[in-house]
C-alpha cells in the first residue's frame, strides 16, 4: 500500500508509527454562537515505536498523553493524521480504515492498560471472566484452553496460585492485584504493542515498583513494544529506553532517556527536571523555573506553545509559529527556536 506521505525513513522498521496525529475537541462556546472553539488536545504528534521498545510519553496533566495513547489503539478517532501499524504480513497499515477481520486482528495485537484499576474492571464479573474476555470475543480456544491460558497469564503476572484468584471478584482484590489482572487481560492474547497509561499512578507507592518490574520483565520476555505514559520522570527513567516529552499537545523533545534527562535541550524539559530532586548532591543543574501553570490548549495562537511560560523566549518565539521537532544533534529531537 502507498503510505509514502510524511513517513520517516525508519518507518519500515517500526511496529507503530504516529504520523502528524491530531485530536481536537469542540468546546461549546455558549448558546447561539456559531464560532466554535477547539481544544487542541493533541496537535501534530509523530513518532515511531520499534518492536520490543519501550517509549515513554511524559508531560504534565492535560498535555494529551492519554489521548495520544487512545488514538494508537483506536479507542479515539484522530481528527487528523494517521496511525500505522505493522500487520501480519509485516507491512505498515493505516488502522483508520480497518474493518471486520483485519480490525479484530489489530485488536488482538494492540492492547491498553488503563490508569484506574478500580474502574477498569466490571464489578459484576469474576477475574476469570475479565481476563478471558479477549479470548471470548476473539473466539480463541475452547473453554478448557481458555482456562489454561488465563491461568498461565495470571501466574505470569504474579497472581499465584491462579486458582485462588480465578473465581473472585474485583472488589475482593487489592489495587496492585487488580492492576496485575488488568495487565493479564492486556497480555492474554500475546499482543505485540501495549499502551500503558500511567498503570502505577493510582497505586500505593510501596507496590509501584513491583508492577513496574513486572512490566519491564514481560516486555523483555515477550518482546512487547510499550508506549509507557507517565508524568513521573523517575518512572520513565526506570522503564523506558527513549522518551518523548509532551507539552500542550505537542512533542517538544524526544531522544534516548538518559541523554534527555542528563542533557535536556528544551527549556520545558529543563524545567521539568529541575522540579525533580537531584539524586547526586555534587551534581549541579541550571536552576530553571517556569512561570504559571499549564492551561488547556483552546484555540492556541500561532506561536510557540511554551511562549507564555518560557524563561528564554523572545519576540521571535512570539511572532513565529510553533517550532518544528528538529534534530539538534546526536539524534536528539527538540522543538525550540532558541535551542
Amino acid at each position, binding site marked *: 500500500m502507498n503510505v509514502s506521505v510524511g513517513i520517516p525513513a525508519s518507518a519500515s522498521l517500526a511496529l507503530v508509527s504516529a504520523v502528524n496525529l491530531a485530536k481536537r475537541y469542540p468546546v461549546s462556546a455558549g448558546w447561539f454562537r456559531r464560532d466554535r472553539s477547539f481544544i487542541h488536545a493533541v496537535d501534530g504528534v509523530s513518532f515511531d515505536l520499534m518492536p520490543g521498545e519501550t517509549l515513554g510519553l511524559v508531560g504534565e496533566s492535560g498535555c494529551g498523553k492519554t489521548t495520544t495513547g487512545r488514538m494508537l489503539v483506536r479507542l479515539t478517532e484522530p481528527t487528523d493524521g494517521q496511525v500505522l501499524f505493522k500487520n501480519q504480513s509485516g507491512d505498515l497499515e493505516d488502522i483508520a480504515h480497518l474493518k471486520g477481520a483485519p480490525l479484530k486482528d489489530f485488536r488482538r495485537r494492540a492492547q491498553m492498560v488503563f490508569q484506574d484499576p478500580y474502574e477498569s474492571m466490571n464489578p459484576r464479573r*469474576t477475574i476469570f471472566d475479565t481476563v478471558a474476555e479477549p479470548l471470548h470475543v476473539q473466539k480463541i480456544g475452547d473453554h478448557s484452553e481458555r482456562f489454561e491460558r488465563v491461568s498461565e497469564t495470571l501466574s505470569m503476572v504474579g497472581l499465584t496460585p491462579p486458582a485462588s484468584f480465578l473465581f473472585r471478584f474485583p472488589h475482593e482484590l487489592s489495587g496492585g492485584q487488580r492492576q496485575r489482572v488488568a495487565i493479564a487481560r492486556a497480555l492474554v*492474547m500475546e499482543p505485540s504493542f501495549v499502551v500503558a497509561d500511567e498503570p502505577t499512578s493510582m497505586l500505593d507507592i510501596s507496590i509501584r515498583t513491583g508492577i513496574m518490574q513486572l512490566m519491564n520483565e514481560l516486555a523483555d520476555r515477550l518482546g512487547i513494544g510499550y508506549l509507557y505514559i507517565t508524568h513521573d520522570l523517575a518512572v520513565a527513567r526506570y522503564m523506558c529506553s527513549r522518551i518523548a516529552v509532551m507539552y500542550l499537545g505537542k512533542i517538544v523533545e524526544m531522544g534516548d532517556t538518559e541523554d534527555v534527562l542528563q542533557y535536556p535541550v528544551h527549556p520545558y524539559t529543563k524545567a521539568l527536571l529541575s522540579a525533580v530532586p537531584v539524586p547526586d548532591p555534587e551534581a549541579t543543574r541550571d536552576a530553571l523555573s517556569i512561570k504559571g501553570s499549564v492551561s488547556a490548549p483552546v484555540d492556541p495562537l500561532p506561536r510557540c506553545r511554551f511562549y507564555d511560560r518560557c524563561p528564554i523566549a523572545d519576540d521571535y518565539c512570539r511572532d513565529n509559529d510553533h517550532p518544528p521537532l528538529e534534530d539538534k544533534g546526536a539524534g536528539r529531537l527538540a522543538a525550540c527556536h532558541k535551542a
Partner: protein
Amino acid sequence: MSAVNAQHAVPTALWRARLRLALQSLRENWQLFVRTRIGIIGLAIIGLYALLALAHPILMNTVWEPRTYDPVVGYAFDETQQPAPPSLKHLLGTDPLGRDILSQLMFSARSEFLLGLLAATVTVVIGTAVGAIAAYFGGWVDTLLMRLADIMIMMPAISVLIVLSALIGVEHFELALIIGILSGFGATGVVLKSQALSVVVKPYIDAARSAGGGHFHIILVHIVPNLLPLSFLYMMFTVTSAIFSEAVLSFLGLLDVRMSWGLMIHTTESAGYLLQVTEFWWLIFPASLSITLLCSAFYLVGRSLDEVVNPRLRSR
C-alpha cells in the same frame, strides 16, 4: 487441573462464584431493605393478596360450590334479596347481580398480579434496551429514541387507553402491553439511559472494545447487568400504574375483562348504588380498598428499593 477436568470444572466454578456474589449482594440489599421498614409493609400487603389469589382456585374446588360462588356467572340462591349484606355464607356480601364479593375480590387479585407483572416486564425489557442503546450509541440513535420518549411522556396514558379500547377492544393482556410500551419507551427508558450514561464511560467498556468486543457483547455483558437494579426498581412503579390504570378503565367500562376490582365498582355504579356508600358499603369498600392497598404496596416496595439502589437517598 487437567484439560478434561477443566471442561466441566470451570463452568461449575464460575456459576458457583456468580451465585455467591448474587447471594451476598442479595443479603446486603435485604438488610438495607428491611431497615427502610416501609418496604416490609408493602411486602406484607403484597404477600396477603398473593395468598388470596392463590387460595381462590383451591376454595372453588373444595368448599365453594361454583354455581353459587363463581365470580362471574354465580348466583347466591341462598339470599332472598340482592345485593345481600355480609353473612356467614358470604363474608363480604353479594353484588347487585347476586355474585359473591369475596370470590370476586380473590379472583381479581390474580389477574391484577398478572397484569402488573406483565406490564412491568414489558416496561423493563423495553426501557433497559432503550436506555442501554441510547447511551451506548449516542448520536442520532440517541436523539431518535429520546424524541420518541418525549412523545410517549407527553401522551396522556389514560386518554390514549380510552381511545384504543374504543377502537380495538382491550383486555388485560393488551392493556399490559400498551402500558409497558408507553412507559418503556417513555419515562423508564429515559431514567435507565441516564444510569447507562454513567456506565458507558467506564474504562472496562474501553477495555472490552479494545479486546475486539462488538456492540452486542458490550451492551449485553457490561451495560445491561449494571442497569438491572434500577430496572427492577422501575418494575415496581410500573405495577402500581398498571393496576391503577386498569381500575380506572374498568370503572369506565372500557375494558373487555370478565372480572376485576375496577369492574366491581363499575357494576355497583351502573346498578345505581355508588352514591349510597354508607348503606351498601360492602359493594364499594372491598374493591376500592384493595386497589388502594395493592397500588400503595408496590409503590412502598419501590420507594424502599430506591433507597437500596441509590445510596444517596439512604437515611443514616
